[in-house]
């Protein structure tokens, strides 16, 4: 048998002499398409917003996707109480400026209500506990889809995840039973209680995000740019000097000129020594950097080989 493939017609060949679309335009169009699928397929979606550059990018894309209308879903932040103050301020200003509904839920409250036990000791973080708050928030508002800013280039388990990532009623990801995801035909059908995590910038790299922020002229929290800061030097990593980090006898307190490459919890996000004060300078540094984003800044992934996969199986983003 033979399955025929249509030859491109002459007209098409002529048109094809046009220049190829830029990759950033392609990535942007894909992300906007995904956002609109969420709005079209789900009844109660939410956008998880942390104040970090990836979720800032998401908000910008959502604005473009639904302009001149408002973003048709609320911004949701799971506040661990360990966030950078600059990120929180940015979050509140942005929500006000675009007139979005902002829902904040606190890990602290979940810990009290459920009597959860916090990690203690060196490198203790609330990274794992925030899953409880997230799942409670999903239940409280009956969210059926949560949009997040995860990228596949960040981590090896994320590299495997679908754009519409199905989660069971316990929020769990099952990497061995992911739904097929064909073409751009996203299947968001679920039962009550289940939900879908949606990652519109799955196919973006860290550099793509920086390049896009620059191209679009998007403002970022000041911690992304070089500034002087008092820090804890621990195991070669520079952590913000804050009471939420349990002190360790080996710690050294230092003052350095730094910027942050990612913005997560203060307990597990390290700063990078840098003099880069503008987006151009930051991009130049990251372009030549030989260390990945998470490798340079994250404490939480380095504990075991499959740390991220295990967290996701438990309902984490």
């Amino acid at each position, binding site marked *: 048998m033979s399955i025929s493939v249509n030859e491109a017609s002459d007209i098409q060949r002529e048109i094809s002499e046009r220049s190829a679309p*830029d990759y950033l335009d392609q990535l942007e169009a894909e992300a906007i398409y995904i956002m609109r699928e969420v709005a079209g397929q789900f009844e109660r979606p939410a956008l998880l917003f942390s104040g970090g550059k990836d979720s800032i990018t998401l908000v910008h894309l959502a604005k473009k996707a639904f*302009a001149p209308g408002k973003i048709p879903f609320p911004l949701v932040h799971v506040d661990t109480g360990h966030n950078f103050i600059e990120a929180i301020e940015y979050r509140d200003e942005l929500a006000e400026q675009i007139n979005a509904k902002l829902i904040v839920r606190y890990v602290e409250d979940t810990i009290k209500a459920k009597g959860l036990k916090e990690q203690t000791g060196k490198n203790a973080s609330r990274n794992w506990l925030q899953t409880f708050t997230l799942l409670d928030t999903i239940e409280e508002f009956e969210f059926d889809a949560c949009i997040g800013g995860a990228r596949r280039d960040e981590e090896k388990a994320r590299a495997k995840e679908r754009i519409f990532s199905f989660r069971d009623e316990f929020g769990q990801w099952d*990497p061995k039973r992911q739904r097929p995801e064909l*073409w751009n035909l996203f299947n968001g059908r679920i039962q009550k209680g289940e939900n879908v995590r949606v990652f519109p910038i799955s196919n973006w790299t860290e550099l793509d995000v920086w390049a896009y922020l620059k191209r679009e002229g998007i403002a970022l929290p000041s911690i992304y740019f070089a500034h002087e800061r008092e820090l804890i030097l621990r195991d070669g990593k520079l952590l913000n000097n804050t009471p939420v980090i349990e002190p360790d006898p080996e710690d050294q307190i230092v003052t350095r000129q730094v910027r942050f490459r990612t913005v997560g919890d203060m307990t597990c996000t390290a700063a990078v020594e840098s003099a880069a004060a503008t987006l151009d300078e930051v991009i130049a540094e990251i372009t030549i950097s030989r*260390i990945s984003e998470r490798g340079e800044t994250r404490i939480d992934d380095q504990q075991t080989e499959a740390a991220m996969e295990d967290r996701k199986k438990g309902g984490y983003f």
Partner: protein
Amino acid sequence: MDLLRFITAGSVDDGKSTLIGRLLYDTKNILADQMEAIERASKTRNAGEIDLALLTDGLRSEREQGITIDVAYKYFQTPNRKFISIDAPGHIQYTRNMVTGASNADLAIILVDARHGVVEQTRRHSLIASMLGIPHVIVAVNKMDLVGNSEDAFLQIAKSYKELAEKLSIKDLTIIPVSALNGDNIVDRSESMTWYTGETLLSVLENVNVLKDQNQEDGRFAVQYVIRPQTDELHDYRGYAGRVQSGTFKKGDAIKVLPSERESKIAKIEFGGNEIQEASVLQSVTILLEDDIDISRGDTIVTVDNSPIVSQDIEALVCWMDDKKTLKPGNKYVLQHGTARSRCSIRDIEYQIDINSYEKLDEVEALKLNDVARIVLRTAQPIAYDPYQKNRANGAAILIDETSNVTVGACMIE
């Protein structure tokens, strides 16, 4: 700079993951800490040889078993192009994951182990690549180091692959002898196979023209969402949000809405709230019409003089992906095509395609996991489609199980 999406396919252990690792390594796209992590993981698993496959085999069970289970996406770039590489599993059990990865690929690299030649999975993945209309195929005859870099061995495999390809009418085929392990003919030309004078793998990846693969003729726009701000200033604003699936749309174009057949003209095209003059393939825009007609998600806007087929009776090639239930005539599913969903029932399995001979098998009663067949189905609502081989974006559809909600079939409408 433009973007190329490619997939690696082929049988278990033919070296797909190693090849992607090698491509990234030789183009200096593996960062220092990632390399250290691979070295560390390699040490705990084998005699200390660095296993580049660990770059993409990121799941715990993949590492334990030394196989790929689900697709991994890796990103890299050369001075000429950006790449999204999709590493597919070779194991037959995970074929649906391979189809997932292949559905968005512009190019497929099908690996063949030089010691074993063309095997059943080579045939299966080649058939899938051809059905999915992947315009460019590279056959990488891998592990050439294990056959003494023999030209004869290569030529023999190339010959048998070409015979296979003829039955599938693959449009653009390149065959390259490589060693993913040693990096021969991947990024750098092989010093052990001087008899090979063709291009390296990377050189083909960098130069293949993907722009011409897109359908730029047939104006198709599936409405995803209706934007209605309902504020004082924008009281009457009605924008149709969607992505141009094929062709182009311009202000003033006469259009038709399907399946209602109502006609109007494009009053305005917007992107991010700003007016633009024209929207072409893959752009996500908002279209405003001159007339106030009833349009909602699932409708398709097309240029008026170039209509797709509007019908409830559909014939399609299908890859069946349910490992629990079979597809049988009489079964009911939800068909998702573009942004439209409709219930449908299977009328007939016309024939199944034999994976080895590509012969048509008649009188098939049911399809099992990974079977490929041509089916006839009837939808509850009319669907506005083009044949897949003419228009990938508007000829693709999926079948969803109504009770489990799982995607169970990939359909290429004929």
